[in-house]
């Protein structure tokens, strides 16, 4: 046992010795704390995809990817520590998977010249790339999510939800508060009433919120939750017998971890998504062969094909495509973080590209530009099938209401630019 441990330690120390020419990807993950259940699969997917590229293709453009993992526990102070500890290694891009940490890192990363990719979270107005030069949140953001949920409700009611009530159960933090403005705008446009029900970190305590829902009987409940909060909310909704098909979560509130605990009664729960679900794609065969079977999977290797694993893998895929774009643009395989930014800004995801990497019809097509760092706001609705034990897409990808969202993006980013003395420009 002892010798085994020593060999392991020695091997690990040698493995940890830095090789400078690699493409460094930092995975600021959280595998501990109240958000771990959702942090683990995302991180596994993110790492496994890069491992696949290393194992199968010998890296990206001939350059190996080196993953540096740093545990944040979803805590901003630790997130800052992770960022400072790893940025010197030549990190190409950060994907903090936490709105709180994103807010910390936006000014720091901008000053250091390292791009941030906050896929489907973070500061929504970072969509305006002329103000947020180094921040990207494609393919969709929270305001898109709010609008997509309302559009779905409109579709179900024949386009008229005047006088209906929609309750928003949200994590009482920057993350949960993001959609409120959009929903207020949509409420004014479509004439529904909006009830706001904040749930405090970490989210285990939400009895009173659900009592209020039981009393007021809103027609629909939207949820902006994460980690343990989702599980509790779905359990509470089951307890008060809220009709599950009228309960719609944002994409961060729609994974197997969130619904399984509530059992069969959670059947019919809906959640938004901006990528496809399941593991019926050629790339999964490769992951199984080159990563899982080879014993190189991140974590326990048991998350392959779950919703959040897919999302982590999708994030890694977008990063890898941006690296390829940057390599083509600058004619060098060993790109820098500044070149990575150019790659992200000129990223174009087409169906042909996705099919070529083994993910046909996996997500919406979009194109990033200097003005638009946020994609086109396409998303779909998925529904939990308790019997099959999986989320299934029940709608096509459709676009959010840009008429409401674009003015909000412009307003918020202009406020940020004024506050920080940034001259917007492309």
């Amino acid at each position, binding site marked *: 046992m002892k010798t085994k441990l020593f060999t392991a*330690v020695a091997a*690990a*120390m040698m*493995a*940890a010795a830095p090789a400078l020419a690699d493409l460094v990807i930092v995975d600021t*993950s959280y*595998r*501990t704390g109240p958000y*771990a259940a959702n942090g*683990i699969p995302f991180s596994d997917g993110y790492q496994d995809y890069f491992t696949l590229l290393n194992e199968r293709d010998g890296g990206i453009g001939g350059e190996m990817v080196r993953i540096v*993992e*740093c*545990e944040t*526990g979803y*805590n*901003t*102070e630790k997130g*800052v*520590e992770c960022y*400072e*500890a790893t*940025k*010197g290694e030549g990190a190409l891009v950060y994907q903090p998977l936490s*709105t*709180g940490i994103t*807010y*910390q890192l*936006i*000014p*720091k990363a*901008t*000053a250091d010249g390292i791009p941030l990719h906050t896929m489907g979270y973070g*500061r*929504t107005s970072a969509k305006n790339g002329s103000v947020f030069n180094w921040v990207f949140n494609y393919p969709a953001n929270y305001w898109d999510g709010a609008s997509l949920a309302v559009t779905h409700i409109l579709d179900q009611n024949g386009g008229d939800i005047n006088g209906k009530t929609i309750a928003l159960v949200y994590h*009482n*933090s*920057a*993350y949960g*508060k*993001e959609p*409120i*403005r959009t929903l207020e705008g949509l409420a004014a446009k479509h004439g529904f009433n909006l009830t706001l029900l*904040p749930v*405090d*970190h970490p989210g285990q305590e939400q009895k009173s919120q659900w009592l209020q829902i039981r009393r007021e009987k809103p027609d629909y409940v939207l949820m902006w939750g994460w980690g343990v909060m989702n599980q509790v909310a779905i359990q509470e909704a089951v307890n008060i017998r809220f009709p599950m098909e009228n309960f719609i979560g944002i994409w961060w509130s729609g994974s197997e971890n969130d619904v399984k605990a509530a059992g069969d009664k959670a059947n019919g729960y809906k959640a938004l998504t901006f990528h496809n679900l399941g593991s019926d794609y050629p790339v999964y065969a490769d992951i199984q062969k080159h990563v899982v079977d080879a014993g190189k999977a991140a*974590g326990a290797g048991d998350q392959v094909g779950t919703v959040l694993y897919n999302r982590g893998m999708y994030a890694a895929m977008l990063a890898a495509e941006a690296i390829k774009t940057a390599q083509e643009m600058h004619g060098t395989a060993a790109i820098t973080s500044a070149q990575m930014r150019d790659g992200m800004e000129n990223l174009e995801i087409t169906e042909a590209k996705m099919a070529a990497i083994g993910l046909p019809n996996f997500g919406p097509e979009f194109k990033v530009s200097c003005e638009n760092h946020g994609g086109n706001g396409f998303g779909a609705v998925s529904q939990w099938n308790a019997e099959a034990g999986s989320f299934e897409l029940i709608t096509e990808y459709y676009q959010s209401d840009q008429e409401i969202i674009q003015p*909000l993006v412009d307003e*918020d980013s202009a*406020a940020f630019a004024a*506050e*920080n*003395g940034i001259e917007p420009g492309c």
Partner: protein
Amino acid sequence: MFYREAGDFKTSYTEDNQTFPIKFDRYRYYAVLLVAFAIVPFVINDYWVNAVFLPFLIYAIAAIGLNILTGYCGQVSLGTGGFMAVGAYSCYKLMTGFPEINIFFHIILSGGITAAVCVAFGLPSLRIKGFYLAVATLAAQFFLVWMFNKVSWFYNYSASGQINAPERTVFGVPVTGAETQPWAAYLFCLVFVVACAVIARNLTRGTQGRKWMAIRDMDIAAEIIGVNPLKAKLSAFAVSGFFVGISGALFFAVYLGAVEVGEAFGITKSFLVLFMIIIGGLGSIFGSFAGAAFLVLLPVLLKNILVGTLGWPTDLAAHLEFMIVGALIITFLILEPHGLAQLWRVAKEKLRLWPFPH
């Protein structure tokens, strides 16, 4: 041998009552200050500042504040996180409301505002004490966090409820915002830490400190010998709030730059600072520093050893970190209930007599 008193004569009361009566001790502290001011700023980088020095310095101020209230005056407080939030949000409102005024004054003013809030929540201490007071201050913690989340005036009606520190300068050098150089942020906090420590040390060894300690040791006896409990307790709350407010303001403006009240100033922060003074040593300024260093530096050190050097999985390391820090806290408290400051005191006593103990 190491701590020689031989030849270190004092010929006046002033000399005998100085902060560091032993010459060796005194010079060592001057040396530490010299290194901190004149050498460290030239050698530190972003990582050292943001992961090690800033949290240590800022938590040290908070620990000094709580130590005055709990360690010196005996009023148990679980509201530190909430009071730090008051400091942070006052600083934010002042920074955005009066951008032309120097950030230095904003931070001191934030301390003043926190002192006022702290006194308001300290009023019940006149009637209740011990655990009951702890619960009352716990209410302050929850109320303040709730209020900063609820009332959008405090975060200037921003969509997300986050507060962001805009860039502010001292003598033309930015100390907040993204362009801040590591040495500037470090020196800015260091000035506050040193000032706070000197003020706290002098308050606690003078009349005011004696009053606080009298109240702590036995309030009825203190009242009989002429200590006014109202003034003593409320002044402790005010001074404590002042320091905690400064630390909250620095925590927000210089260290993190953006803050979400529930996450940054939750109940865990109150416990963390309380642990710092318990481990460091109640009723000791040095203990505040030692406790802050222990709880800030140890997790970072463990992480660097387990993940950086040994290459263990990050989640395993994080869990081990909890276990090791927890076990060390328990071990310390069993072996030395008076904290690191007492260990240091004992070590000093021993060294003064070494090599010929009585």
